[in-house]
């Protein structure tokens, strides 16, 4: 999955150094450090309440850390707002799909494009020719992506009528409109049926093959094992371990935190566990 190019460039795309964040008395994230490298899908796993989404929000800038730093391409972005980080190429999706309900699927896609011409009162009136050109280019890219994600028939429908799975596809397609350097995906397969989850995973895998770097939060460990390398395990707001899924499957500490058991360590690979986990994978219901 990782190309030679990515191996060669050792500089991390994003780097979190000692991030902490509390909400009231709850320490959601404590002294977390992680790195994600270009061309890779870095997995982020852990039980519910481990602090994964908060960590992602800290990386994206939706939350400000109490302490610690976030470096994006070596630049300290800790004090930058989420919209400023987005302009640098750091784009996130949400755990719960966020379609713009009363706008068409196509308009949802256009908002993903970040050339932002014609978006102030002066530019909307003065630079009409320029934003028309940009809009046309964005429209063509949107149509390409909608076709790729099998949403083209829904182009002119309001996003609010989409099914849960279609919203997931739209969310991923919309994020790609931004040409992000790093895509932060918060449970992109949550709440969709297993077939569509596989389809989404295929999209993610293919995007990675095309060079897209990602950080992926996911509960379904078989998917994580298939897509992500390395994988970072979080528990109780801290990073517990990181490595490939095979390595993590052998770690007693990880099994203990993630599955709540220590027996038969090493004998049972983590990803093919057949017993019900304490935290059931979604899509079962």
């Amino acid at each position, binding site marked *: 999955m990782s190309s030679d190019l990515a191996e060669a460039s050792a500089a991390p795309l994003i780097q979190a150094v000692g991030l902490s964040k509390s909400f009231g008395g709850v320490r959601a994230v404590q002294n977390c450090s992680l790195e994600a490298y270009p061309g890779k899908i870095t997995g982020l796993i852990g039980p519910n309440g481990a602090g994964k989404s908060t960590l992602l929000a800290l990386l994206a800038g939706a939350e400000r850390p109490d302490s610690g730093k976030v470096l994006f391409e070596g630049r300290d972005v800790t004090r930058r707002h989420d*919209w400023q980080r987005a302009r640098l190429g750091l784009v996130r999706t949400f755990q719960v799909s966020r379609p713009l309900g009363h*706008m068409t699927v196509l308009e949802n896609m256009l908002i993903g494009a970040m050339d*932002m011409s014609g978006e102030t009162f002066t530019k909307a009136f003065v630079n009409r020719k320029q934003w028309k050109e940009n809009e046309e280019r964005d*429209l063509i890219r949107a149509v390409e992506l909608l076709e790729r994600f099998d949403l083209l028939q829904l182009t002119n429908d309001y996003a609010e009528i989409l099914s849960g799975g279609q919203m997931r596809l739209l969310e991923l397609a919309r994020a790609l409109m*931004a040409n992000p350097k790093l895509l932060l995906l918060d449970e992109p397969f949550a709440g969709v049926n297993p077939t569509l989850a596989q389809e989404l995973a295929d999209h993610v895998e293919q995007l990675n093959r095309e060079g897209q770097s990602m950080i992926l939060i996911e509960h379904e460990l078989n998917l994580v094992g298939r897509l992500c390398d390395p994988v970072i395990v979080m528990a109780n707001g801290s990073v517990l371990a990181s490595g490939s899924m095979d390595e993590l499957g052998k770690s007693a500490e990880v099994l203990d935190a993630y599955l709540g058991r220590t027996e038969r360590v090493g004998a049972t690979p983590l990803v093919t566990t057949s017993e019900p986990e304490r935290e059931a994978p979604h899509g079962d219901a």
Partner: protein
Amino acid sequence: MSHYLYYALTLGVYFFVYCLLGLGYNLQYGLAGINNVANYSFVAFGAYMAAVTTLGPSNNYLQSYILGTSIAWPLPLLVGAAAGALTSLVLGFIFLWRLRHQYQAIVTLVVAQVIWLLVGNNTGIFNGYNGLAGVPQPLESVVNLAPIPYEAFFVGIAAFCALLGFAFMRRVVRSPLGRVLRTIREDESVASCFGRNVFRQQMSAFMVAGAMAGLAGGLLVEYLGSWTPSGWTVYEGFVVIAALIIGGTANNIGAALGAFIVPVAIYELTGFIPPFGPVNAQTIDAFRWIAIGLVALLFLWFRPQGVLPEPRRHFRLVDRILAGQEPIPGNGLSLSEAVHGSDAASDAKDATQ
């Protein structure tokens, strides 16, 4: 006969001024999703500023006010618009920084009341509750017309401003700016995670809407000749809100339709109800407000999108692709090939290669 003509022309002025107000409110509420109940305070401020820049220096004996000067028309209207925009800039920091949804609405309502009390109780600013009177009508001595032709002339001024506002809002809605504002209305975290500065975008929309309200206020005071706090209570602001809800939120034609339905049709027509039995003129005035409130409520229950819902945006280029008139860029397939499995299409492609 001439009474009716005069009355019709008066309604014309009100219609066009309320068009402008509705379009401005559509910009901040319909597009940018700002829940502002204080919109009429900006109208009032625009009206006062247009008045004090028309009236000339204050002689503290009759009425006292700040900044008394007399500048050439239409500059007082522009001063009114600028005043609306500047007040919006200041209050925008209170309304738009962290407040959202019903909390925002409540705070704007409270601020509107505070402004109302401040202006009413401080006689030195705009002559307190007595208000300003004797504002000359624009270009009265220049055009030198009889009452009815002058009334028609004023309808023309108001119509010009309303049409300008309409053309302006049409461009806003169709531009990327309109798309960003609607994105903020739908879900502002999506807007900011795609690089948009939500505060700045809302603030600029709020200021432009404030300018439109200030301009409308300037027109009103120049038409009426006087302006007092009893003329800009929360009720007057509610007329604008009700008009947009009934006409169609986020629809510019809906805003114009609402300006006809609420301030012209409902408000004026209910004035024709004759007093009967225990119902006196005051009761009838109360009926007007009940009628407007009731119609707005019925719309919110049964047709929240208004008479004319928000138009769905189409892009001609994409519609041509969807109709199969143009191939999908990138792979050169037509839509039907792309949707109904591309086996046949790719076979055909292979054959041609």
